[in-house]
């Protein structure tokens, strides 16, 4: 096991290896992700029973909860990638941070927007300064900071390392932010869904949620990998393997993927 991990680690240093292996991962992860999302959405929209208090507007949680969970996980991914970049100088980690940041920001925005939409029928207002919404908003700002920092620094290596530092500090700060924001009295419900404890909702409600969450995560990994492949191609465009690849793909019109 250990040697296997070491081998994998070593291989991860080679963008070319990752470029190929990621393609085969995407072939599995993208269909799984889309399938889970579609299944979860359809189940949640049409088959799950309505909530006895919120009625049908509760169905928004199948959008809201997965995107909120993913949004936080992506920042933690970036923080870990930041540590890997600074300690082991793995270029792949830099690409992960770069590609993951806008994806994370988009899911944070989705979580905020779906939460706001849900707030209208439930709370009677678009925006409530409650603990979770506020923490999510701060997370969105953290994403903006990382993206802005990368765009401000011209030199790519420097920008990558600077973003890594910000991602690490942000990652450490996230629990503190969440905790401090929790000091505010909250209108929000308690955690809808925990991995460790059995949820309070009936299975026909939380099973589709679980499926959607899995779908979102698989989808994210697939999309991240595809983004990283593009980044590899761009950064390595002078190398021989890229030009050979381009020559192969170019011969087949429209087959490039």
């Amino acid at each position, binding site marked *: 096991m250990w040697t296997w991990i070491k081998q994998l680690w070593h291989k991860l240093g080679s963008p070319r290896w990752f470029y190929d292996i990621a393609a085969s991962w995407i072939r599995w992860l*993208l269909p799984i992700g889309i399938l889970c*999302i579609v299944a979860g*959405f359809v189940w949640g*929209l*049409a*088959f*799950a*029973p*309505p909530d006895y208090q919120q*009625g*049908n*507007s509760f*169905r*928004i949680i199948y*959008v*809201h909860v997965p*995107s909120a969970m993913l949004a936080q996980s992506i920042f933690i991914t970036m923080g870990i990638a930041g540590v890997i970049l600074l300690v082991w100088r793995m270029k792949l980690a830099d690409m992960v941070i770069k*590609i993951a940041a806008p*994806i994370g920001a*988009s*899911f944070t*925005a*989705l979580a905020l*927007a*779906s939460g706001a*939409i*849900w707030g*209208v*029928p439930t709370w009677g207002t678009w925006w409530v300064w409650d603990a979770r919404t506020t923490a999510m908003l701060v997370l969105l700002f953290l994403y903006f900071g990382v993206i802005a920092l990368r765009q401000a620094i011209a030199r790519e290596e420097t920008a990558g390392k600077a973003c890594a530092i910000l991602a690490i500090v942000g990652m450490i700060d996230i629990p503190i932010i969440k905790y401090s924001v929790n000091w505010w009295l909250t209108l929000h419900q308690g955690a809808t869904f925990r991995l460790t404890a059995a949820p309070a909702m009936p299975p026909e409600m939380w099973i589709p949620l679980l499926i959607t969450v899995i779908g979102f995560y698989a*989808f994210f990994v697939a*999309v991240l990998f*595809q*983004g990283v*492949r*593009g980044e590899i*191609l*761009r950064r390595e*465009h002078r190398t021989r393997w*890229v*030009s050979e*690849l*381009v*020559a192969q*793909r*170019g011969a087949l019109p429209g087959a*490039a*993927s």
Partner: protein
Amino acid sequence: MSFDSFAELLAMDGHALYVWASYGLALLVLTANALVPVLYHRRLLHQQWQQQRRAQAREAVDAAAGSGPQHAQETS
């Protein structure tokens, strides 16, 4: 199915606007995130391929024009 008819599903018991807007946004974010890297990758490959072709064309032109003494020497 927790709805009696398709129309009821669409109506969402009066919450249609909120529910469908959320799912619409979700689809928007998901498709955008899926399309951006694929299109970028494709464009990159295309650009690279065009560059290669330009380079090849240049080489071909050079080879055709360079039937002078220097090149002849090189090939001999």
